[in-house]
């Protein structure tokens, strides 16, 4: 039930405390009542049942992806061989 989905903020409506997000092509309005930091267009957020739960840290995501690239390299490329 509560799988939270990463989405991108594409519009902000501060007055209504809501933002429009894009989840891989699907757009919808969600509530930003639970988030105290202001949201900006281009932020990545986690959505759960119609609410933004938190921002996703872009640097952290990039660092993790870099770490995985190193693991793959260390394991000698395509491990299927």
């Amino acid at each position, binding site marked *: 039930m509560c*799988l939270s989905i990463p989405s991108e903020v594409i519009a902000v409506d501060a007055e209504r405390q809501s933002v429009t997000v894009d989840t*891989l092509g699907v757009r919808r309005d969600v509530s930003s009542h*639970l*988030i105290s930091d202001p949201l900006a267009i281009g932020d990545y957020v986690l959505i*759960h049942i*119609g609410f933004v*739960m*938190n921002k*996703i840290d872009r640097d952290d995501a990039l660092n993790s992806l870099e770490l*995985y690239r190193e693991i793959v390299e260390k394991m000698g490329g395509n491990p299927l061989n």
Partner: protein
Amino acid sequence: MLELKQLYQGFRDPTTILSLARDIARLADKLPAPLNVMEVCGGHTHTIMKYGLLELLPSNIEFIHGPGCPVCIMPKERIDQAAALASIDNVILVTLGDMIRVPGSHGSLASFRAKGCDIRPIYDPLDTLKIAKDNPKKTIVFFAIGFETSTPMTAVLLQQAERQGIKNLLFHINHVLVPPAIDAVMQDSQTRVNAFIGPAHVSVISGAKIYRSTVEKYATPVVVSGFEPVDVMESILRLVRQRIEGKAELEIQYTRAVSEAGNLAAQALVNQYFQTRMQFRWRGLGEISNSALALKDEFAHRDAERIFADRLPVKQIDDHKACQCGDILRGLAKPKDCKVFGRGCAPETPLGSCMVSSEGACNAYYRYQGIQKETVARS
């Protein structure tokens, strides 16, 4: 610049998954004892089955499916209460997603709807405000379910109802807490669990700190993990490393959104409206003290459980005799151990809640068994 697609693909990349699997397999030889990892949450069960992670792990690492799904752990009597509320004249019962299909002792909420009760499944709790405004002569009851992840959303709904003076909205609260359920699992004398991966979204709200006591009390490592397959594999690798080094620590793998403290604004909101419930009966785990929430006394005017107390059945009802959901939720059995799995019990005709919830262990096994290898190769 990071793009959303990259974010998804990076954490689902088959080459990375397989590299991590090789790393795990290499280290697992050094494990002093088998690693029995409980994935507390059905979201993880789903990932494990969908991406065939089971098959990628050495035989001394086992997943044990935990009680972490609000749909799976709902005892029949609570569904019977929802059905009783929906049967009262001029009541509209509103609830989230899968809940409507879970069998109670006189049928599911879907079957009550078919009999004419006004029951509305929604995907966003705030939609309830509109239903309440559009139906001023009716009483709207929000059948609230979910772990720490979903409780703040119910709190916002209540806050908005109070602020906007919407009087015809009541709540039936079934919010439950992860740490007491983990305690119940660990205190079972038959438990084999010796490591946990904790669901990231719960800790996005509550912080990683909610597992401190588990780590200390049971000397059991906990890694708070994301839901993508690479997240899960990295979390397993971290658990293996801890075990080999003889450590039991709390780690956050999902640092992309989880902190030690969590979302403080959401926690404050929950504390404003909710108090701990002394007892709550979990499907499969039985009564667990202080394991759920109820509305605070000052919001008694919103509490359907108090207002309709004389109409709500309280008889405790156990599952169909053949159903092994209880053992599955305690980590003592696997879906395939159940005699009716895939025969009497399937997603279209569920006997137990583990088959209903799309994240239930039985449902995940049913849907993905046999296709795991292919999925990894293709995705």
